[in-house]
């Protein structure tokens, strides 16, 4: 269990308030969190050697959006689980993100803090089972 909690989680979200909120929620459960505010920053963090177990990825962002990030990142060459932040009216983008290797999606307007943590623990347990 302690080993699971040492996992790195990367949040890619351009809105500062939301990024901080997600960070506080996830850190409260004992995970280590990194924040990026666009796809380019996320790639930089990964290039510097960070190996996040989970990436929470917003789709609409300035500089480099979520889709452009996924094209560069190539999820199938990494073992990160990519969770896309989605909205009711972003069906096309979610379809596109899944085609580019995203694994899950969360409806931003619906997921309350505890649901966010439940998604993380589901992924962590799944990873533990596979390993």
């Amino acid at each position: 269990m302690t080993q699971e909690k040492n996992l790195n989680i990367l949040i890619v979200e351009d809105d500062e308030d939301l990024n901080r909120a997600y960070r506080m929620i996830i850190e409260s459960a004992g995970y280590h969190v990194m924040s990026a505010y666009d796809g380019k920053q996320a790639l930089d963090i990964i290039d510097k050697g960070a190996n996040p177990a989970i990436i929470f990825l917003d789709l609409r962002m300035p500089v480099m959006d979520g889709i452009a990030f996924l094209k560069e990142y190539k999820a199938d060459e990494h073992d990160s689980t990519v969770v896309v932040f989605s909205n009711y009216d972003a069906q096309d983008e979610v379809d596109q993100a899944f085609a580019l290797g995203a694994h899950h999606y969360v409806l931003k307007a619906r997921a309350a803090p505890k649901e966010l943590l439940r998604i993380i623990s589901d992924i962590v347990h799944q990873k533990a089972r596979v390993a």
Partner: protein
Amino acid sequence: MDKHGYIQTWNKGAQKTKGYAADEIIGKHFSTFYPEVDKRAGKPEWELKEADRHGRVEDEGWRVRKDGTTFWANVIITALYDTTGQLVGFAKVTRDQTQRKEYEDELRRMNDSKDEFISLASHQLRTPATGVKQYLGMIIEGFVGEVPAAQREILTRAYESNERQLRIINDLLKVAQIDAGKLRLHRYDIDLNELVADVAEEQRPVAKTRGHVLTFHPNKRPAHALVDVDAFRMALENIIDNAGKYSVAGENSITLTADDKEVRIAIADNGVGIEQADVPRLFQKFVRIDNPLSTKVGGTGLGLYWAKRIVDMHDGRIEHRPNQPNGSIFVISLPISTQKK
């Protein structure tokens, strides 16, 4: 005009609209008034043929004045016959509709920019509202320590208000998306008995808090249709929620029936009902029908509009009928699927 389209008589009105004096135009062919592209396509001749065949033809399009400028015209050509039924010529009335067309175009542009504005504003509002949800959620869910009951109650109310705001924003965005033609359905062959039972089950707790019993009467046999489960589910939820909001207490029922052509889902309530005169406006965007409960019950006037658009995209229909002795029945009909599995 004679029967070949050569102009025989001319009047003041025609002179004012098109700029020709009588002696300049009598004897000329009426195709003179058409733009080159229409002439090449044979439109003037085609219109005469149509007028002869049906007695009359009406058209709207660009026409050319003497000075080369164009105007948007409404044109009616009526065939004239002699006593033996022989075609002798045509009467043609042209009205300048340029101003009306300009108004219509302007109205369309304004409507488009209104839709664009709503969509933009909603996008901008959604992110901060999501932030409020997360921060209040953290406090209520005890992330930063125990919250005294009195404070928790107030925070929960703030959270619920914000949830309502998020729902409205999302409704606006969903409608903007469908109006822009950006919603694509992923339709699969499913048994609607199962989907409707599922939705009814989910809606039952909400119905209970309103003092309703929500019952579901399935079809005896499976009733398959090609359905986008997420979209159709939300459309159904909108109708059921609507029925629940506008009725006081008692039973609201969902009945599924099918024949060899259609699956029909009837959602019946015993609520305030809808005046016959209001029915045509029921499915229009932003329309909320005045009734004794409408001020008490929140709504954006988007739920039924969106539901209708979704049902239309499923090649289905949605209709309203009065329930006896009071209330409404909404009937959704979808073409039955005969795909063999």
